[in-house]
């Protein structure tokens, strides 16, 4: 494992980026303005791009520079722009009926992080990697998963749900840059494009939702039961 045995400088840079990204997902949890979600998501994507570049530099995986550029362009600029357009067109600037208030969801999110830390700690102890960056990477990866699912469950605006999904994938991206930087390049490039398609699809679906169901809140989607 190369990454686990890096110098202290590299390790602290990676840790810093990972922790700030985690904090940014708490920003999304704690806000009810859709626009803030978007800015936090964009900032998180930029951080991931920086992370890719620095992993590429320190661990000597030059292909990660390409990933960094693509991440910055697609996830950092294009996706937030597309989503911003959706938000503008919908004229729904904020969550109206949240199931969990932002303050309560912050607490639940924090519990999620504790749980993720416990899992990450066990795994890395099993692999004799306790005390390395691996623990942090796993924690951030798993807790961003949990936070993403929390947003999916507790928020009802269409755009928030799209962002919930994007956080799920951001977590995987962030973790995999640190854990498996050598994962085949093709795969990561395709996943980036894939995301773009996802958001394009969502854009169309949101338009449908507006036009035919008359709302973009999943609260009102409850005809199909049983």
């Amino acid at each position, binding site marked *: 494992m190369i990454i686990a045995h890096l110098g202290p400088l590299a390790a602290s840079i990676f840790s810093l980026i990972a922790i700030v990204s985690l904090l940014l997902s708490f920003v999304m949890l704690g806000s009810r303005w859709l626009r803030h979600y978007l800015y936090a998501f964009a900032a998180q994507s930029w951080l991931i791009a920086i992370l890719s570049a620095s992993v590429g530099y320190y661990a000597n995986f030059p292909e990660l520079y390409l990933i960094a550029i693509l991440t910055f362009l697609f996830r950092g600029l294009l996706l937030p722009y597309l989503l911003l357009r959706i938000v503008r067109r919908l004229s729904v600037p904020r969550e109206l009926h949240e199931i969990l208030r932002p303050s309560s969801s912050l607490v639940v999110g924090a519990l999620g992080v504790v749980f993720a830390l416990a899992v990450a700690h066990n795994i890395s102890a099993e692999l004799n990697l306790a005390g390395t960056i691996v623990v942090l990477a796993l924690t951030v990866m798993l807790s961003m998963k949990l936070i993403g699912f929390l947003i*999916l469950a507790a928020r009802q605006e269409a755009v928030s749900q799209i962002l919930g*999904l994007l956080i799920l994938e951001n977590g995987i991206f962030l973790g995999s840059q640190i854990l498996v*930087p050598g*994962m085949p390049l093709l795969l990561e490039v395709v*996943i980036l494009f894939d995301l773009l398609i996802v958001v394009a699809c969502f854009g169309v679906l949101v338009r449908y939702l507006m036009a035919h169901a008359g709302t973009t809140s999943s609260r009102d989607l409850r005809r*199909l039961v049983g």
Partner: protein
Amino acid sequence: MLALALITVLAPAAAILLIGVTRHPRLAAFLNLAAAVVSFLAALPLPVLTTMRGPHLFWSGSIIVDRLGAWVQLCTSIVYLLSSIYAVGYMRMLDEEARLPRFYALFAGFGLTTLVGPMMNNPGLYWIAIELTTLVSTFLVAFERAPEAIEAGWKYIIVVSGGISLALLGTVLSYWNGSFVLGPRYDMTWASLARAAPHTDPMLALLSFLLVLIGFGTKVGLAPMHTWLPDAHSEGPAPVSAMLSGALLNTAMIGIVRYLALADQAGVGRISHSVLIALGVFSLFVAALFIVRQEGIKRLMAYSSVEHMGVIALGFGFGGPFGIAGALYHMMNHSLNKSLMFFGAGNVMRSYGTKEISHIGGVGLRFPVMGALWLAGAVAITGAPPFGLFQAEFSTLRGGLATGHVLPVLIMVVLLIVIFIGFLNHFRVMYYESSIAPAAEAGALSVWCTVPMWCALAPLLVLGLWWPEAIWNYFGTIAHVLGGAR
């Protein structure tokens, strides 16, 4: 062999292009149909070729044509063919002439992505293929643009994308696990992961298997991750429902099966199999509850899909030659049978103009031939002899007993009986409770709507009466490769 495998995929791709160029509704239907015929003809000899020449890798190991994949491709291409035939007749009833080219392009795209999945030798690319099936089929589910259809499409894409991201996490973790053995940079294939598996960390292997199981299990429709399935299956046009149920679910199941083999190799097979069995039993349980009290005709079929995916999961969970053979045989029979059921449901829904079981009556009187086919299909899908699913379920039960899973087998039998009674009771209401007089104008169904039902029922009967030894041996080899001889 490569040529054939590629033709199965290239035919729908060509159809998409041509439909995009011509944009003519009638022509689009036949282009899609032609693509389906070509890809069926190309998929047909694949199992034979893989038997004769063994599994093959192509394009520096990115494409795999093995027995398991070839079998699933065959099942998929059959459903694609049947539902393409059916679509010609069904889509004319919808009165959406202008949007038909788009429908058929998407439909061919759906066929394409489901056929690509089993060929992927790279678990990551397989994941992408599955993700693409979701994106394409969402628009097919929401095609009719009623508020319910939009709701179903939205639920479908949110639930499945969320679930499948867990599978991506599992994929990343299993690559990471392998990197302790094979070094930080290696080719990601099923074979390389299997090579690394015996030396990897069991706990991490178990974690990644569970994540993958939940992830692809969402796509397969195993309870409790099945919530999108009844909505999507009931709101899409009938040919789409048939594809979702008969083709897509199998394609997603193959991922679980391949990861299960990896978990076996990593020494966590016992617990992985138990979890799969538990999910299978729970799916049967949930399906039984909802089938008994169901009111919507296509939702009934959808819950029956949950049931059958549960049975397939049980077959692979039991393992052993009988369990695996039962599950694979079940895939084929379920694909045929569920297509038949959705075609019948589509015909009935269009003729009576309702989705409610209670508003449908006297089907047998109004449609003597189609009604008889549909009723035979209903008997078959509940696992009654002399149809194929009986053989498959029987073999699964034998597999369960042979591997010592007595309790799950008992529960499975009880639930199957409950489902048998509940399911056929709805058909009794629709056929023999003639409180609802059949509507006066008996609009005749087009031939396109009944021919695929014949084409599905005939092989179902043959496979029920005669399980060819060649197929049995074919499954035996797959079971051996998957490490089923535990």
